[in-house]
């Protein structure tokens, strides 16, 4: 073999440049597609990881934590839980409502502990509105601050025993938000001084026997009991952190509202804009009975 024969033979198999470039473009396109798919897969994985990391700190309407600001927005009583004795403060003329500062973020368990230590009682039972009310502060238009309730079928879960048939006072539509003298001034935006009421009056409550300076005593800080669940919301400044709960809604949410002497005046909850949480009564009783 001589060199010419070799070169002739080597030159016999030149590929078609057009075919080569077609293949180059096809392979580059396939590589880009693989990159997109890989990027998409990575994005999915990243989103899944982010969801796994963030989900525990995001509270979808439930108060599982109180440290996250995201959760705080959805928690029923975030930053609004009143100290147990706070409901007796309306004697000052400002009521316990209207001011977010009157509610501290105290979960129910700690609130019950503090209440029992302060000499309060924790009860479940039924309340019947008598129609009587305590006069409000004349400077605030004379709106009622408290409504009288007769307690029945009382079970004392913690603290001094509370007798069935006794009268207690429920904070109502406080006049703190009614400087203009419009009367019943509880609003959806300032509901702390009001109370929710079950259709049959069943309730869970912390009973403060002698509110210092209160116009009436004892005072109830109550939450309605419906179908075996205690319904907590900003009304009463409840915080159910650490308790099992489910969001509460539906038609039942309209049957009770701020306590008034005349039940017909109760506002439907749909207008209040406050999230509601149902905690099994047994769970609440277990917490209270632990004291």
């Amino acid at each position, binding site marked *: *073999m001589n*060199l010419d024969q070799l070169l002739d033979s080597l030159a016999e198999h030149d590929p078609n440049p057009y075919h080569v470039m077609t*293949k180059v473009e096809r392979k580059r396109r396939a590589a880009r597609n693989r990159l997109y798919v890989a990027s998409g897969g990575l994005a999915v994985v990243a989103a899944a990881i982010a969801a796994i990391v963030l989900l525990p700190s995001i509270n979808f309407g439930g108060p599982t934590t109180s440290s996250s600001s995201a959760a705080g927005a959805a928690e029923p009583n975030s930053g609004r839980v009143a100290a147990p004795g706070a409901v007796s403060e309306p004697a000052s003329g400002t009521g316990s409502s209207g001011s977010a500062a009157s509610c501290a973020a105290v979960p129910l368990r700690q609130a019950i502990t503090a209440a029992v230590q302060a000499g309060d009682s924790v009860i479940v039972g039924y309340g019947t509105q008598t129609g009587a009310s305590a006069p409000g502060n004349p400077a605030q238009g004379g709106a009622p601050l408290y409504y009288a309730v007769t307690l029945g079928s009382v079970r004392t879960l913690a603290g001094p025993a509370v007798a069935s048939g006794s009268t207690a006072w429920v904070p109502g539509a406080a006049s703190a938000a009614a400087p203009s003298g419009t009367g019943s001034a509880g609003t959806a935006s300032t509901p702390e001084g009001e109370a929710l009421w079950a259709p049959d009056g069943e309730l869970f409550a912390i009973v403060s026997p002698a509110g210092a300076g209160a116009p009436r005593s004892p005072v109830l800080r109550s939450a309605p009991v419906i179908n075996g669940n205690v319904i907590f919301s900003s009304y009463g400044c409840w915080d159910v952190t650490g308790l099992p709960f489910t969001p509460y809604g539906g038609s039942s949410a309209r049957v009770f509202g701020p306590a008034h002497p005349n039940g017909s005046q109760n506002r439907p909850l749909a207008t209040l804009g406050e999230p509601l949480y149902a905690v099994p009564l047994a769970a609440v009783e277990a917490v209270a009975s632990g004291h």
Partner: protein
Amino acid sequence: MTFDEFVRAEMSTLARFSGALTGDRYLAEDVLSDALVKVARRWRRISALDDPAAYVRRVLVTTYLDDRRKAQRRRTAPTDEIAILERSADAVRDTADVVADRAEVARLLAALPPQQKAAVVLRYLMDESDEQIADALGCSAGTVRSHLSRARATLRLVAADGEGVTA
């Protein structure tokens, strides 16, 4: 120079080189397109080199050798031994008569191991030095000389520069 401009300027040379390496125009298309895809991904860096064409040839050789390595794993008959057997058989025949046949030239080329064939193509088609070939093959210049010597023996090549040997 953009990648597209480079390809337009060098395509005919690269196509001839690829065809000579592979000995098969379809395989040449595959190997060259694979090499160009690799080059396109790194073109910004490659275009800054003194001799981008030489680098691309190196990529092409590497791609070809990788392809042959994979093909070798799929084959059951080792080509080296075939070449030796062929060479022994041919030794008893008149060398000039055998190599006169074009098909026989192609057969002998096809019998070369990939490294030897790449060395032959780079030397005789691309006119590269031992050092350049060594750089392209990733071996020493001495190994290149060894490859070329063995290849010439297999091909019974009588080169114009007199460095050819016959078996």
